[in-house]
């Protein structure tokens, strides 16, 4: 493990700020994200509301809704969805990857072929089919993200487990006659964890991008729910007159993804290298 210094940790600041903003977003939000201010539509960022004179930090949209407040609410939902999806798909991937890598033979062939088959349907199409069959909604979006996400985790975990099986300590454990369950629980899993956690952090940003695409296409959570992808979709109609409506949520997605990826890299240096 690397030595921890404040110069290294300062890079975590943006990550911490974003997490705090998103967790406490609704408390910080100056306005109800759905309340319309008809006298203050399409305000540019940093303009003032007509009635109250309050500051519209990131401007307002075509219905006079406060973009800053909507960003905070939408961000909370996207992060929540992505994290739950990563927890679900990560757990499935970890279990399947460990079992496949450890047992190999038929089990391995079975699960890996299953993964190959799934990857032969582009994820977005699979998502579209599932949503169109089962309907939109938060739970279904999480299910879709989890289904499309487990394969990459399983593959990463599996190759790590196969490496581990070659090591002396696992082989001695096998020679000592320990059961599979005990070896996996006490010797394999603790050594897979670092690789697994780094992989899952990066998966969160992948999920954020993917769920943003779904809500942009209008096949994500219901249209009335605030999402960054949905905000970009609505804002696209106003590109000529009000660039900020679509641009701000887009930039927010990029900033969050960059921050999470940097955090992932930092964690990888700390844990794996």
């Amino acid at each position, binding site marked *: 493990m690397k030595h921890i210094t404040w110069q290294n940790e300062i890079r975590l600041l943006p990550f911490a700020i974003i997490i705090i903003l998103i967790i406490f977003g609704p408390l910080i939000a100056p306005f109800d994200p759905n309340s319309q201010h008809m006298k203050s539509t399409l305000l540019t960022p940093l303009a003032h509301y007509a009635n109250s004179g309050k500051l519209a930090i990131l401007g307002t949209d075509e219905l006079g809704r406060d973009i800053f407040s909507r960003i905070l609410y939408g961000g909370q939902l996207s992060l929540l969805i992505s994290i739950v999806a990563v927890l679900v798909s990560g757990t499935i991937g970890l279990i399947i990857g460990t079992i496949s890598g450890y047992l190999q033979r038929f089990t391995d062939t079975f699960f890996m072929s299953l993964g190959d088959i799934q990857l032969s349907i582009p994820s977005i199409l699979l998502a*579209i089919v599932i949503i169109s069959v089962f309907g939109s909604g938060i739970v279904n979006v999480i299910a879709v993200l989890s289904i499309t996400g487990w394969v990459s985790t399983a593959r990463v975990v599996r190759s790590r487990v196969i490496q581990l099986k070659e090591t002396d300590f696992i082989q001695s454990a096998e020679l000592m006659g320990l059961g599979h369950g005990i070896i996996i629980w006490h010797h394999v899993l603790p050594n897979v964890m670092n690789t697994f956690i780094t992989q899952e952090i990066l998966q969160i940003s992948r999920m954020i991008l993917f769920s943003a695409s779904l809500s942009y296409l209008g096949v994500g959570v219901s249209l009335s729910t605030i999402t960054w*992808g949905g905000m970009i979709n609505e804002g696209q109609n106003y590109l000529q007159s009000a660039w900020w409506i679509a641009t701000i949520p887009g930039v927010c*997605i990029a900033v969050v993804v960059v921050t999470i990826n940097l955090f992932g890299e930092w964690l990888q240096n700390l844990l794996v290298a």
Partner: protein
Amino acid sequence: MVHYLLKRLIQSVLTLLSVLTIVFILVRLAGNPAQLMLPVDATRHDVIALNANLGLNHPLWMQYWDYLVSILQGNFGESLYYKQSVISLIAERLPATLSLAILAIIIAIVAGIIMGTISAIWKDSWLDHISTSFVFLIQSFPTFFIGILLIMIFAVKLRWFPTFGNDMPKAIILPALTLAAYPVAPITQTMRTSLIEVLDGKFVLAKQAMGFTDVDIVFNREIKNAMLPVLTIIGLELGTMIGGAVVTETVFSWPGIGQLVVQAVQKRDFPLIQATVIIISVFYIFINFAVDVLYFYLDPRVRKGKI
């Protein structure tokens, strides 16, 4: 050789069969397929009639068999919204998607190979840093947002290109650039890593000893050795691009299959959704098969069955 190709062919067919089975199961999981196939305001009588018509009163294995047979015969039924055969709808839209995808992959390959090569030859220089940061950034933006940024800069502000539609040839540039953003990052990264690896090899050292410069070495020979992993990535990325086309076509109202499938979902046009998904998967499986065959010819190790 025949053995290898045959094995890959059987694998592809099995994958296709699995895709068809998954779609079949998903449709049945959702309840009565007739209900999905009919408009929302269909009466009970309509459902019963369609049930009989689709053979939904038969046992499941027979339904499955009929479903496979009708798809193999190219019979995907009729679109609920457009009231015409699903196959003809897809055939109308296919050229638009193909031209978009082909142009995009060409852009991505050219840009990716150039950037990756520059990065590898002048490793750790400022050129390398710019290209690496660019790749990092492009992966952090949702691709539809890259499309919107391009529209804003080049169509709204500078007015060089139209904002949407298919007024050729100008209209294809922005969507193709957007779609190229998907594969350009992995192609650049793979090219860079792979070329760096090749340049570190002993034969390159020997050539350097003979007095060849890095640029000479790269262009005369080594680029070919570095291309194999890039080819695999290109094959994999073609699949991502098919998904990307769905989003890109929606951003630019590009009249291809991607836009068709999104509209089909919004209109709950199930026969159309089912057919587009199957056709796109067929394309994807075929592309992967083709990449493998190409790989077979390029890499002697695969040919001799060593990998």
